[in-house]
Structures are given as structure tokens and as C-alpha cells.
């Protein structure tokens, strides 16, 4: 997969993994209070090799291998953030955020409020999401909805190298706890990333593809799936608009509603479990804000509500695909 813009311009192209590494390196260079901590983040550069080389420039004092102790390192991050540091805590697989829940939900998310605004927790929890890597039920989930549910947390779900870099820099500079979800199947995704410094504000959706007939709101790798679906739909005369919220909280409700009003039809695609998920939240935003403009019910496509199976023959059935997005879009447009 590659973003359309990167093909055309001849500008610098990075993979998503490289963009993330560059964001971390720039922030480590800019601010001495930033540090990275996690399992195998130093010489190993993480299990996904995303951080390779960082320890060479910044040393083991700032790119810190930790014990296999997700609650412990997350808790350390909370305390360090409260007392003058800007930790980036690496949680290898998104499934392991279950282990960090007390520290993220009861501590990090609430400390600013509980202290009447006196204390703050400027930390980033970087983790992964995404299935179809044949990693089975405990290494494949997309649990970003869990953190999105909790007041006090911000949640980032980038879909391109450009967005990943700009949003990660913003996350590190934010004074709140931010959960940053990287789809591990996208680390090799290529895209245009300018040499010059930039950041991307939270809560600002990006129209990844303009269109007039149907709105597809998609997150993370589902943006790429939806862009592929949009190309297929264009061949049969349906112009889909792909809206990428980029952050599930803060959520750019206005951009989503405006697009739905314009096209009168909407699908929400997200790789989290469908029930009680991101798709449900965004569908309700559209229903609430664009009801009188809609020509059809809002449709949701999430991961199938089953533990993610190991067998490739089964796993592939659980995730949204371009084909499933196309079929849903055609049905909504009365083209079946």
C-alpha cells in the first residue's frame, strides 16, 4: 500500500515505521525530558524494529529497555510525567494495554481532574493494533475504543506516515496522557513525509479522498482499505469521500457531520470490535448531526465480534476488507 500523493510528487518518501522513528528522534533531540521506555526498545529496536538506531544516538539512559512489566513501566511513566519528564512508554502489542488499565484509567486519566488542575500527566503510551498477522487472539486486537471511552485520555490512530509523524510529535508535546495506536501491518506503508518540521493538531479530521456520493469514515489501516474500496467504487460511478478523524478523542465531529450532510450516505469502518465500538460512536455522531440529510441508515463495519482466530482461513473473515466496504456502499447507494 502507498498513499496516492507520494507517487506523484517525487518528494521524500518514508515508511510509517521510519516516520515514527524520525518523530521520536526529533523530539528526543529537542527536549531532554523526553525518554522512551519499553521491552526491547533499545538494541532490539522493538519487536517490529521501528526504533532501530535510536539507542545509538540517545543512549540507554533515554532509550530504556525495561522488564516485561507493562503495569510497572506505565506506572513509572505516570509518576515521571507528573514530576517533569515526558515519557514515551512502549507497549509492544495493543492486547497488553489490558495490563496497563489501572495506571491509564484510574491514575493517568484522572490525576489532572482529581487534583483540581494542579498536577498533569504529559505521557505517551505507544502501542499497536491490527489483525491479519496470524498472531491469534492475544496479539491481534485493536482496543483503541477502550481508551477512547475514558475522559482524561486522548487517542491517536494514524493512517499514513505523514500523519503518524506529525501526530506523534504533537502527542509528545501534549500535556495530557495520550494513547498512540500504530497498526503493525502498516509499518512498511510508504508515504510522503517532508524534511521540514511539522506537527498535526489533534481533533482535526483529514479528507483522504474527496467524493460526492457516499462518506466513508475510517481509522488507521481502515483508511487504506477504504481508499482501495473508493477506487473500486469509482469504477462503477460511485464517488466516495474518505474521512479520516486521525484521533478518536478529540473527535472532529464537525468534519464528519459536514461530509455526511454533503453525501447523504455514510459508512464507518474501524478495526476494533464492532459492538460498543468506535464505529458505534461515530455512527451516532452522524445520526445525531446529519439525520435530516441522510438518505439511508448509517452502516458500521468493524472487526467481527469473535476472539481473533489463528487459522488464516478464519482470521481473514474477521477483518473489514475493501470488498466488504464496496458491497456495503453499493447497497447504501441502491446499486445491488
Amino acid at each position: 500500500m502507498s498513499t496516492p500523493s507520494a507517487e506523484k510528487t517525487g518528494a521524500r518518501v518514508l515508511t510509517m515505521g521510519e516516520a515514527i522513528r524520525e518523530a521520536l528522534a526529533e523530539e528526543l533531540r529537542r527536549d531532554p525530558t523526553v525518554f522512551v521506555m519499553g521491552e526491547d526498545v533499545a538494541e532490539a529496536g522493538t519487536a517490529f524494529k521501528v526504533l532501530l538506531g535510536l539507542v545509538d544516538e540517545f543512549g540507554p539512559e533515554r532509550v530504556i529497555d525495561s522488564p516485561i512489566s507493562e503495569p510497572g513501566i506505565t506506572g513509572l511513566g505516570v509518576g515521571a510525567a507528573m514530576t517533569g519528564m515526558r515519557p514515551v512508554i512502549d507497549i509492544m502489542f495493543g492486547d497488553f494495554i489490558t495490563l496497563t488499565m489501572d495506571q491509564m484509567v484510574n491514575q493517568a486519566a484522572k490525576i489532572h481532574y482529581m487534583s483540581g488542575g494542579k498536577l498533569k500527566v504529559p505521557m505517551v503510551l505507544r502501542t499497536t493494533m491490527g489483525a491479519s498477522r496470524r498472531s491469534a487472539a492475544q496479539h491481534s486486537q485493536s482496543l483503541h475504543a477502550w481508551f477512547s471511552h475514558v475522559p482524561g485520555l486522548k487517542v491517536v490512530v494514524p493512517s499514513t506516515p505523514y500523519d503518524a509523524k506529525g501526530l506523534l510529535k504533537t502527542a509528545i508535546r501534549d500535556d495530557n496522557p495520550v494513547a498512540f495506536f500504530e497498526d503493525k501491518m502498516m509499518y512498511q506503508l510508504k508515504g510522503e513525509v517532508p524534511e521540514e518540521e511539522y506537527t498535526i493538531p489533534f481533533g482535526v479530521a483529514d479528507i483522504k479522498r474527496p467524493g460526492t456520493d457516499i462518506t466513508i469514515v475510517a481509522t488507521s489501516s481502515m483508511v487504506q482499505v477504504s481508499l482501495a474500496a473508493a477506487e473500486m467504487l469509482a469504477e462503477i460511478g460511485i464517488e466516495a469521500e474518505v474521512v479520516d478523524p486521525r484521533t478518536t478523542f478529540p473527535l472532529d465531529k464537525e468534519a464528519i457531520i459536514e461530509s455526511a450532510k454533503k453525501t447523504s450516505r455514510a459508512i464507518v469502518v474501524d478495526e476494533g470490535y464492532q459492538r460498543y465500538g468506535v464505529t458505534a460512536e461515530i455512527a451516532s455522531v452522524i445520526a445525531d448531526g446529519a439525520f435530516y440529510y441522510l438518505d439511508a441508515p448509517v452502516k458500521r463495519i468493524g472487526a467481527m465480534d469473535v476472539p481473533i482466530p489463528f487459522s488464516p482461513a478464519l482470521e481473514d473473515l474477521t477483518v473489514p476488507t475493501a470488498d466488504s466496504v464496496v458491497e456495503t456502499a453499493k447497497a447504501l447507494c441502491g446499486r445491488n
Partner: protein
Amino acid sequence: MAKTAKQTKLKTGKSATPDAEEWLTMYEQMVRIRRFEERVNLLYTSAKMPGLAHLYIGEEAIAVGVCSVLNPEDYITSTHRGHGHCIAKGADVDIMFAELLGKAAGYCKGKGGSMHIADQANGNLGANAIVGGSAGIAVGAAFSAQRLGNGRVAVCFFGEGAMGQGFLAETMNLAQLWKLPVIFVCENNMYNEYTHFSETTAGNPADRARALGIHTEEQDGQDIRVVYETALAAVERARRGEGPAFLMFHTYRYHGHHVGDINREYYRSKEEERDWVENRDPLALFADWLLAKKLTDRGVLDGIEAEVKEEVERGAQFALDAPYPDPSEVSTNVYA
């Protein structure tokens, strides 16, 4: 807001042999905690205080002994039974009462309450209503102190009930692994809520720390001189970069788990309670020693008693008269 004139802070650079004035300041702090808690009990039982109140009476020597070896900029983290720690670290009783009553003038604008009171200006990173939940914050604060090189230490107060939490074991591992300047202070009052700790805890809790190679002490928590001396040694070695310590102090909670826990005979006998109150009361033991050593006389102690009593009454009245937060406060401080 009425500031309490009598709250003279100890000089920094703590003496191994405090002089009479320093001992009397500690005595006064212990009296302040006891009278404060008695007034809390009255507020609660007269339905003036919402929520829950977990009284610290009986354990005063630990909070005061430990906090008296700290500097104002050193950190503490506290527990649901945290009023004593908060006062010992330098908080003013009127603003504390205001917080406990949910008033705008409170330390956390009334948003935290008894179980989340924090006093950032005095290094109190907050009470915590998750048992053992603040250990990450303390270890993280110690991590910041080490990395920023500011010479601070962090003290993590918790009860013996926290020994059942894996999170505490994880943070102790991190602290010893990286030689962080953190003191784990286990206040062993023998009861996990309504259950004797021998029914919940395998082995001696202090042995857990010894197994990690952490400097460990097990001492009488009713004798402030022992607490002071033990804490001073631990803090000094932490400041020298020699790493964490685990101090277990034996103590007793005179009241129930919370104010409503009145009929306690199903889990502990009245004889046991009477024995601690009559024979091992930290205030009485301290007064007897001060008088026996002729460091003071009864008139001075009575004077402290009278002044503190008046200060506490004034503080409670201040809080009772203080306004509640404006409704607009409900949605401020969610994000920094």
C-alpha cells in the same frame, strides 16, 4: 484563607539528633493529625461530610517521623488513609477540611476529596484509592529525580494490604533495578479492611523486598524516634544514590477501616484495641519521653494541645462556611 501560624517547617538537612524544638514540632504535627481526624469523625457522624473517611488515628508517628526527614520538595504518595501523610508533609488543615467537604477552597477545588487529596506545593502527589496504585507514581517521581539530578527522594506510603498487589512487586523491581531514590513505607496496621493480614499474606511482607536485595527494615511504628531514625538512614542512602529502601512499621488503626466500621468484634477483639490504645499510643509514648528527658514540660504540651485544637476548630468552621464549587467546574480540568 486563614493560614495556620503554628506550622513551622523543620529545617532542611535533617539532624540525626533533633533538638528539643524539632522534637516538639513533630509532637505538634502528631497532635494536629489526631485532632484533625477526631474532627473529621465528628463531621462525618454528624452528616456534614459526604463520602468516606478512613481515619489515621493510631498511626501518627509514621507519617510525622518519615515526613520530618524530608524536604518540602521531596515527594510523597499516599493512600485512602491519607490525611496524616498530607498534614505531615505540610498541608494546612483549613484547606484540607475544605477539600474533605467538597468545597471550592479545597486543595483540589473539591474535585478529589478525602481519598484523592493532593498538595503539589508540598510535594504530595496525592492520596490514592487504588490499594498500591500510587507505587508507580512514587517510582516515577524517583526516576525523574534521578534523571533530572535534583537530589529529591520519593516516599510511597501504603498499608500491608497492598502486599497482595502484583503492581507493588513490579515497581519494587524497577526501583531496585535502577537504584531509584524511593522509600517504600509499609504501614502494617495488621488489617486489610476487615481481615487480619495473616489470612491474606504468605510469609513476612518485608521478605518480599529482601528477596529483591532492597535495603529493608522492620521497626516499631509507634515510637517516633525509631521511625525518624530509620527513615533518615533510608533517605540519606537514597540521596547518595544507593537505591530504594523498604521500611515496614508495625502500627495499629484505632478506628475501623472507615468511620462507618463500628462493630469490629468479628475481626478483632476489644482487648486488642484497648491494649494498643493504652500501652502503645504514639502520642503518649512521645510525650512521656519528652517529659522524662526534660526536653519540655507539661505546660508546653498543654499549650500545643490548646493551640492545635483551636486551629482545627477554626479550620473546620472555615470549611463548613466555604462555598461549594461553581457548577461550571464540573467540566474544567478534564484536560490540561
